[in-house]
């Protein structure tokens, strides 16, 4: 049975698209047939982060409104088997998505895939609500700062009240916290919220903590999901998160100060 997972946050710029790209890639690497959909109509970014922007012909909006077949719009990833990208339109706006149209696409995808990852736009308006409406689970991407945590709280309310599951009275959407840009130094200095503080406020289980890592931006510029970069700490953390999403018990890393060697200390001082 296919699972629909929305990657959402309320606040913009916290790492939704980066996380959607990494997690869908990770699920596919683990052998699950996965499609990742860009719901951010008008501000399409997912295809860039996935490195397929030069292969986009048709998109999500064309499938809904213009009679294009899903297979014509789905882009198969060249690096990872089982992974497909459904890009969105840059020229239309959120009104191009209709509930019925999205439902039709979802039904078709459910028949073919194990995981359908919906990359939500920022905000709490129509676009974000459309992205979360059909979800079975949600990954709430949050930065360790107060405004992001509050917006996540708000979006958790919408997951509870505005989703298909809520309207039909089914089991509520299972929400997971993905804490991104976690910078231990700044957490210890008190500039950023601790993991425990965020969990205290949001009261949902933790899927993962992604350390702040310059490789994220570097990979994003290359169109490479960071999870494919072996040397990246963020990539490792995303691999752990994917394992937890699949029900495995994995110890939380990057939440305590690492023991540093003398050399490491010297390097840091001179950096």
């Amino acid at each position, binding site marked *: 049975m296919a699972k629909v997972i929305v990657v959402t946050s309320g606040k913009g710029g916290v790492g939704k698209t980066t996380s959607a790209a990494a997690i869908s890639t990770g699920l596919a690497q683990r052998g699950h047939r996965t499609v990742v959909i860009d719901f951010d109509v008008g501000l399409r970014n997912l295809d860039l982060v996935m490195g397929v922007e030069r292969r986009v012909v048709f998109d999500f909006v064309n499938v809904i409104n213009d009679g294009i077949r899903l297979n014509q719009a789905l882009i198969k990833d060249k690096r990872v088997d089982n992974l497909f990208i459904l890009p969105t339109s840059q020229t239309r706006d959120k009104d191009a998505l209709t509930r019925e149209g999205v439902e039709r696409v979802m039904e078709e995808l459910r028949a073919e895939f194990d995981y359908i990852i919906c990359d939500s736009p920022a905000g*709490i308006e129509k676009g974000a609500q459309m992205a979360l409406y059909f979800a079975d689970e949600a990954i709430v991407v949050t930065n360790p700062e107060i405004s992001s945590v*509050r917006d996540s*709280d708000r979006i958790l309310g919408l997951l*509870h009240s505005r989703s298909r599951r809520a309207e039909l009275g089914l089991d509520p959407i299972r929400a997971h916290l993905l804490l991104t840009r976690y910078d231990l130094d700044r957490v210890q200095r008190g500039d950023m919220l601790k993991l425990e503080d965020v969990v*205290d*406020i*949001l009261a949902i289980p933790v899927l993962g903590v992604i350390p702040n890592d310059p490789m994220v931006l570097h990979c994003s510029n290359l169109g490479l999901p960071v999870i494919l970069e072996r040397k990246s700490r963020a990539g490792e953390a995303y691999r752990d998160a994917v394992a937890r999403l699949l029900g495995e018990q994995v110890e939380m890393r990057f939440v305590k100060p690492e023991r540093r060697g003398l050399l490491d200390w010297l390097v840091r001082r001179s950096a």
Partner: protein
Amino acid sequence: MAEQQDERLPFRIRGSLQTLLALQLIEPDHPRLLPELEAKLAHASQFYRDAPLLLDLAAVRARPPIDLGRLVGDLRRLGLHPVGVQNPSPPWREAAEQAGLAVFGPGTQPPERRPRAPQARSAMVVDRPVRGGEQIVAREGDLVVLGPVGHGAEIAASGHVHVYAPLRGRAFAGIDGDSGAMIFCDRLEAELVSIAGVYLVAEEFEPAVSGARVHIRRRGEALVITPCGA
């Protein structure tokens, strides 16, 4: 309605609806009038500052008018701006006109809230977090919340409000006017608490009760926050 859109006209006349504060005069000669008023204003100086004001004369229309010009001057010194009167008798109307005040129609007043007699209540129980932007109202009786109430969430009950988790949003007890209603919470981090219309904002909490397990009751026109077990 056949108003011509004359482009050369340097003005335009439009209807506009405003809500005004009305100061009901009961004993306009009372020596405590101004000091009491000043004390009242001090409680919410931001709210009243430079507020346009109507003088409601319904209660005094049978008496001979007072010098309204002097009263206007006194009120201005308190930071209020009387703009007119309502419900005048003919002599009061004359006094108002002399003081440069407009005469308004009778106007409408917000419906008076009659405190309802406390009834046998059943509680509404919410066993999940209440998120920012959510609003939960128990119209009949108490509200019990078992999960945290997030910043920007609002919970309200005609009876007591119980939160067995941190309270970070706004809580309203006794929304039908029951001033015996109380608020209980495991951790007071609220933005605002209110009982039967009397409220406190976070800034006004004593440091000793912020973050503490407390109960909140109304005493007269004030709210009293007490740590549980104290």
